[in-house]
């Protein structure tokens, strides 16, 4: 009883609590991505995938609302404490929520694809890009949670390569002899991969960018 009362009184620090919830958002979106990719690209059987994806997306959306609520509560009680952290969190939870949306969009590709994707053909265009993004999920989480500037810089480099590759894929598809269905699906995948990468990089680079520059890592790169 006393232990319970003590833990109730001690509670959990605002930032620790919010970071835990944000970590959950990143883990959930990574799981969504992993499940969709294994079904879409590796033709793995995942029963009730649609239901699962939509449920996880709901969970991610609710976590976003929960974090926003905590931020409002925190700034009401302590208006001068952690202001920058709160503004930053307000920005990155939006990115994490968008990750969920793009994973959902990626799932929707599985519904329009007419025949299972030929992995060899896919690799010819994408060249392991799906695996790179999986790695980027991990690096982003580590960079953000540990506030590791080195890992954030690495994510930034990853983004550049992936974004350039996605643009090139679109140009190649435009000139290819792929069927309409394959071309549309590949183009959508390339587009969603690029957006997922951009949002992950927004999160990772928030560790190194000033608050006013958040989300504009590409402009910053040109300057540097």
């Amino acid at each position, binding site marked *: 009883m006393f232990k319970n009362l003590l833990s*109730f*009184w*001690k*509670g*959990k*620090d*605002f930032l620790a609590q919010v970071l835990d919830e944000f970590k959950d958002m990143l883990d959930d979106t990574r799981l969504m991505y992993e499940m969709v990719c294994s079904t879409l690209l590796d033709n793995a059987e995942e029963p009730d995938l649609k239901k699962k994806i939509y449920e996880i997306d709901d969970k991610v959306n609710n976590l976003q609302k929960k974090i926003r*609520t905590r931020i*409002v*509560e*925190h700034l*009401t*009680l*302590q208006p001068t404490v952690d202001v920058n952290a709160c503004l930053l969190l307000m920005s990155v939870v939006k990115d994490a929520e968008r990750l969920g949306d793009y994973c959902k969009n990626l799932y929707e590709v599985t519904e329009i694809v007419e025949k299972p994707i030929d992995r060899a053909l896919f690799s010819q265009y994408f060249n392991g890009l799906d695996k790179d993004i999986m790695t980027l999920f991990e690096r982003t989480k580590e960079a953000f949670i540990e506030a590791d500037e080195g890992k954030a810089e690495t994510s930034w480099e990853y983004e550049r390569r992936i974004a350039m590759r996605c643009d090139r894929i679109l140009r190649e598809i435009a000139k290819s002899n792929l069927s309409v269905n394959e071309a549309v699906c590949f183009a959508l995948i390339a587009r969603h991969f690029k957006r997922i990468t951009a949002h992950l990089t927004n999160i990772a680079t928030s560790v190194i960018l000033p608050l006013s520059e958040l989300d504009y890592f590409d402009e910053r790169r040109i300057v540097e």
Partner: protein
Amino acid sequence: MKAKRNTAAKILLIAFFLYLFLVSIGLMGKAFKGFGAGFAENLIRTTSNPFIGLFIGILATSIIQSSSTTTSIVVGMVGSGVLTVGNAVPIVMGANIGTTVTNTLVSLGHFTRRDEFRRAVSAATVHDFFNLICVAIMFPLELATGVLQKIATCMSSAFADFGGIKFTSPIKIVTQPAIDFVKHFLIDFSGLPNNVAYILMLVLSIMILFFCLFFIVKLMKALVVKKVEAVLDEVLRKNALIGIVGGMVFTAIIQSSSVTTSLLVPLVASGVITLDVAFPITIGANIGTTGTAILASFASAAATGNVSAIVIAFVHFLFNLTGAIFIYPIKIFRRIPISLAQSLGDLASRKRGYAIVYVLGLFFVVPTLLIIISKYLK
């Protein structure tokens, strides 16, 4: 380690300001006593009209924005015998209405966003309407029957029988040397005429009271706010009883209902909590804020030996407790302040100037006019 040192320093400072607060109440009692019987008679005559007392309570508290200060001064006056318990009851009730001005002023900060402003005004004025309804019920009832005063007298006599005055003697032991020092300095050594010295003593005691309450609230808030934040979800998202207890405990610790209710305004305005969730916390804050006057009454009783100070502090407590017990549990009664606050919120969001008219009217213009009219009619 640094955080622990900071916390220890804050606790020591709170203890110091609490000590000064108790000294100020004792000093106030000595100053009022020093003014002599003529002053007491005059003051008792002025406040003998309960309506004037009520409006003085509203106006004084609206101006200083702290019911703790008003009720502590009233407790000091009753303890020193310059104010009777009967005359003090309406002032305490008025202080309850006046204290709601602070969160209403906070709600005006949401002026620029219409929907947010509507919710903010509702959150702030639910406290006003609740206290107005309590006064509308309890003020005539008290005038007719003196029920609160009777119960409070019973409570305080029981308290005295169980050694209430003895209980307060440790306070006397620690505060008396400081009170005597100031008294000797002003009366015996300063060479000032007695009347001037006592006026100076009164001014000094009120200044110390203000100063101490200001810093106690500030330090207490800094000390407990992190803990409150950690358990906020437990209070906000559970049942109404937890809300009442949470609001009461938080307010009793920081000694300011204005802080509690003002914190609720932005939470309701931003949609984090609803008015129905904020209302029980507000009621809890109403009860919790009576702790300051009870503390002051112990100091006053210790300094003067007069249990009346404890009686008026208990009247304040009983008044707020009665309101909570009779209004909140009955759904139809509970909806009245909420509906009135929502209607005012709707009106203020359509014509935002109404909110300003409401604040000026209820807290400043109407009480001032009624005091003048009552005096003139007299």
